[in-house]
């Protein structure tokens, strides 16, 4: 009773307080210019009398384009380039309209990271001098708002064109109908995006996904060139944000999100950069990016072969396209020097997407804006499917286990990020499938009375060297199975072989270790300073996490003898060689745990490539025959490997009284009677003595030329100077200080590359793609055995 009374009193108190507050609020309608957050000053305003309320003036494109002067001076008065008045916002602050993703505001623009609020107008107008900080914010806001409006209209359009009036999918769309709520907002994001137009970073802009913010920096000693003055930069950075939304369209109930890019070279990152360049074209229809901000650093990028910046020989003809993998290392600003940089490699994708847009204009009688919107729709479809952590993939034929393994075993993020990541192959294959499902389907009439044929799809991809797949893979992991509803076999549409003219597929047997006499198979880097720098860089970027508590913080065991010693952290670089007559692209070296040990028999190594012999400890037991494969009934198709099916890459040689055998690290630990506390991780003896560091357990080479090593491919052709290795080119291993010197370990790495004939599809099974679970085994890879002596 007492509690009820107190509750009643509390309610009355709250009510009275609310009445008082309501009264105060009613008299508190914002008055322009009275806020302490007001930031407008007389020096910053420009022509405010000539713009209306809610309006301002902006740089409608970047200064190079507006001035039509490629060599525009940094000190040029940008006020002369401001266009006529445009609507900025009717809000009091630079905050975008609601409903982008159900938040009160989609995004807001602030001056610097130190700013506590968005810019506020004092008179409802947004006109400022081009050199002012306020102008930078307004310019950023205008272009972001323009892009957001266009992008979210596109998502609306995508949903409208994917479903009929009864919300039934018209094709196998990946975009969930439930994405759009009845109030018109989207179930997409839980955090407002912040954009800082005046960041204190030199020669850079960035998208910080963890804090959901964009930063636009400057160039030049006096910060004369602000990156936010270049609208193409704004579109590109905001494009990374859009990509993250697109990749996670099906992950709204997943705490973790997937992304395209990280700091080191990989193909997903390269595709992400190419997409962001394309998103600039998506908004402004221009086929060049970054003339002002990046251009002053010789870093602007074309999006079409017709651009005069390109090297001789590149043209919009089928033979002159920027094709994969020939142009992976091509920088048009330094055309003779090979470079391994995701921004440059991404140009293949941006050029392909622009060419696709133009092809759709031509073959489907679309206007350029219509074609751009259509391509964006295809990108949303493709990325939603590829990024799906719920593993269902699509709406019509989707079911758990279709993509990125199976959610019930929580390996979907691992598959997306490491084991079966997005590559030029998977990306172009999914784009092709979605073209076939939509504009390629005559019944849907998406091509204005015609349809975009398979030959159209395949020929254009092939001109970019991207026809790297044998089927359209409509059914992914469920391929070739009996459909319980239709009682027919789900078959994938094959690619027409005759259409593959430029795209070359190479057998994985051609990826070998350098065969030259005296050449090294692998290098060990154990220099303390270099390794410490690598750990610092990789940890701060979030690529690797914590290391073993056993590894001393001064890396005191690292002795710089280029051998692997107890207690060290070492980088290992494989000296791979392309033994074919065509370039290889997207070479991946995996040192992560995989299914190659016999769990039923002390995790002994299963026999691959005749190693190890059964007399040397190898196992040929039935358990090994099931590795990475789930033959049999349809219900098993998406069944993932269990956690126990992952074994570390390294085994250890053990000499006992009767034989020398290869055994698991846990068995070796027992043999040499070492306590668990002496293991790298005292709670896990599976990799007690040596382990690849999670996150640095994969390495990439962008391209290897025919009959060459990566080092030969990347060397400067004029000077012969070697191209330095980056942290993404090497694997990092931690070695326990408890491992006895003289021990020999065998680490069984797996390698593959993107334009591979037998790494992604199975020639013995109608060229269907391997199932995700098979990537946990040996079949899709070439295995490299490294036998490493531990030397004190």
């Amino acid at each position, binding site marked *: 009773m007492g509690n009820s009374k107190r509750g009643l009193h509390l309610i009355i108190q709250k009510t009275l307080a609310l009445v008082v507050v309501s009264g105060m609020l009613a008299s508190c309608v914002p008055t322009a210019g009275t806020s302490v957050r007001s930031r407008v000053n007389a020096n910053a305003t420009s022509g405010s009398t000539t713009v209306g309320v809610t309006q301002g003036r902006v740089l409608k494109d970047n200064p190079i384009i507006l001035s039509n002067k490629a060599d525009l001076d940094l000190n040029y008065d940008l006020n002369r380039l401001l266009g006529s008045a445009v609507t900025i916002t009717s809000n009091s602050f630079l905050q975008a309209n609601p409903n982008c993703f159900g938040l009160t505001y989609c995004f807001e623009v602030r001056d610097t990271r130190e700013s506590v609020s968005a810019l506020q107008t004092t008179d409802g107008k947004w006109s400022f001098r081009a050199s002012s900080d306020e102008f930078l914010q307004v310019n950023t806001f205008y272009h972001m708002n323009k892009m957001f409006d266009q992008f979210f209209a596109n998502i609306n359009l995508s949903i409208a064109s994917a479903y009929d009036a009864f919300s039934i999918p018209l094709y196998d769309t990946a975009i969930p109908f439930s994405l759009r709520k009845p109030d018109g907002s989207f179930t997409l994001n839980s955090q407002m995006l912040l954009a800082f137009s005046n960041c204190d970073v030199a020669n850079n802009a960035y998208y910080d996904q963890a804090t959901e913010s964009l930063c636009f920096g400057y160039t030049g000693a006096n910060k004369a060139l602000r990156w936010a003055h270049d609208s193409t930069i704004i579109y590109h950075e905001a494009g990374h944000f859009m990509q993250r939304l697109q990749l996670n369209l099906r992950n709204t109930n997943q705490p973790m999100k997937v992304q395209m890019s990280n700091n080191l070279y990989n193909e997903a990152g390269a595709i992400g950069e190419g997409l962001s360049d394309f998103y600039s074209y998506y908004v402004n229809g221009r086929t060049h990016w970054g003339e002002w901000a990046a251009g002053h650093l010789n870093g602007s990028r074309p999006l079409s072969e017709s651009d005069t910046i390109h090297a001789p020989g590149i043209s919009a003809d089928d033979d002159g396209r920027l094709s994969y993998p020939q142009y992976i290392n091509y920088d048009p600003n330094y055309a003779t020097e090979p470079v391994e940089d995701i921004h440059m490699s991404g140009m293949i994708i941006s050029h392909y997407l622009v060419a696709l847009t133009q092809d759709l204009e031509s073959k489907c009688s679309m206007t350029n804006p219509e074609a751009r919107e259509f391509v964006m729709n295809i990108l949303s479809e493709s990325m939603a499917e590829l990024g799906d952590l719920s593993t269902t993939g699509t709406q019509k034929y989707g079911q758990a286990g279709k993509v990125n393994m199976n959610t019930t*075993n929580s390996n979907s993020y691992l598959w997306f990020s490491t084991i079966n990541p997005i590559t030029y192959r998977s990306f172009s294959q999914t784009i092709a499938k979605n073209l076939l499902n939509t504009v390629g389907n005559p019944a849907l009439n998406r091509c204005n009375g015609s349809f975009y044929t398979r030959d159209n799809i395949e020929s254009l991809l092939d001109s970019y060297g991207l026809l790297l797949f044998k089927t359209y893979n409509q059914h992914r992991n469920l391929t070739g199975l009996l459909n319980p509803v239709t009682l027919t076999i789900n078959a994938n549409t094959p690619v027409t072989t005759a259409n593959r003219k430029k795209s070359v597929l190479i057998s994985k047997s051609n990826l070998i270790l350098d065969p030259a006499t005296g050449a090294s198979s692998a290098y060990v880097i154990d220099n303390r300073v270099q390794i410490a720098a690598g750990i610092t860089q990789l940890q701060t970027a979030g690529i690797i996490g914590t290391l073993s508590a056993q590894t001393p913080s001064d890396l005191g065991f690292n002795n710089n003898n*280029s051998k692997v010693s107890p207690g060290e952290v070492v980088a290992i670089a494989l000296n791979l060689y392309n033994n074919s007559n065509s370039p290889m692209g997207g070479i991946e070296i995996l040192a992560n745990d995989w299914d190659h040990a016999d769990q039923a028999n002390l995790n002994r190594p299963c026999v691959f490539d005749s190693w190890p012999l059964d007399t040397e400890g190898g196992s040929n037991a039935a358990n090994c025959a099931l590795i990475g494969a789930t033959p049999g009934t349809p219900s098993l198709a998406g069944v993932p490997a269990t956690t126990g099916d992952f074994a570390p890459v390294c085994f250890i040689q053990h000499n006992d009284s009767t034989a020398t055998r290869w055994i698991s690290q846990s068995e070796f630990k027992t043999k040499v009677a070492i306590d668990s506390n002496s293991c790298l991780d005292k709670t896990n003896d599976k990799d007690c003595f040596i382990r690849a560091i999670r996150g640095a357990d994969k390495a990439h080479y962008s391209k290897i030329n025919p009959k060459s090593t990566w080092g030969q491919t990347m060397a400067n052709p004029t000077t012969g100077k070697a191209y330095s290795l980056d942290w993404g080119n090497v694997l990092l291993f931690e070695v326990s200080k408890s491992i006895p010197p003289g021990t020999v370990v065998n680490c069984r790495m797996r390698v593959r590359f993107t334009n591979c004939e037998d790494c992604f599809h199975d020639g013995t099974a109608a060229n269907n793609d391997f199932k995700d679970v098979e990537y946990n085994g040996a079949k899709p890879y070439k295995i490299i055995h490294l036998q490493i002596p531990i030397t004190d």
Partner: protein
Amino acid sequence: MKKTILFILSITVALGITFYTKNERSKNMVQVKAQWKTFVKKNNSVVDSHKTTQDEFLAAKIPTPPPAEKVQRTIASVNPYQGFMVRNNRIIMGDLNKKYEDENSDLQMANSVNPEWKDIMGNDLMRFQPADTKLMVKEEVPVIKIVNGIGRYLEQVTVTYLQKDGNRSSFKALVDSETGSVVETWDRTIHEHIRPKRGGLILPSTNDSGIITK
């Protein structure tokens, strides 16, 4: 008379708002405080830690905590549990079986929660960093990841490094609630450096690693 009607109307509206707010909060809001902690590398062997100060937020250029009015405006969006399955005030990841939401249902756990997990993680992530590096850790939401019917307590955090030269980088991470070890990372920063600097790894002039291939 007018005043009386207005007063009654105000009371009614205010009562309505009070009850609505109370109900909504009890439905959606589970108390999670965004707790920040800063770790500072003093020298090769000493890492200090303390509750993050306003000066450090400014120095790290982290636009948080937001002004009070922002919290009001986006209150629905800051509920980290919205849309997720929850058990013991922790988001469920992995096997998203509804049965696990029932807190009376059995769930074997592989680890336990160590109240010192954040300190262990902070110290571990700072061990290899140069002196004067700062690490700011924002505790976001606790998690249970269920794999093959076995749960594991994890903590979702946002990690921000602030280096001596002013550079900053952030990412999200899942951390083991017992050992403080980082289990997974995502949402890393995407940069637009023109011709970015490479790691500059130098291969040894002679290779005598002893590594052979089979």
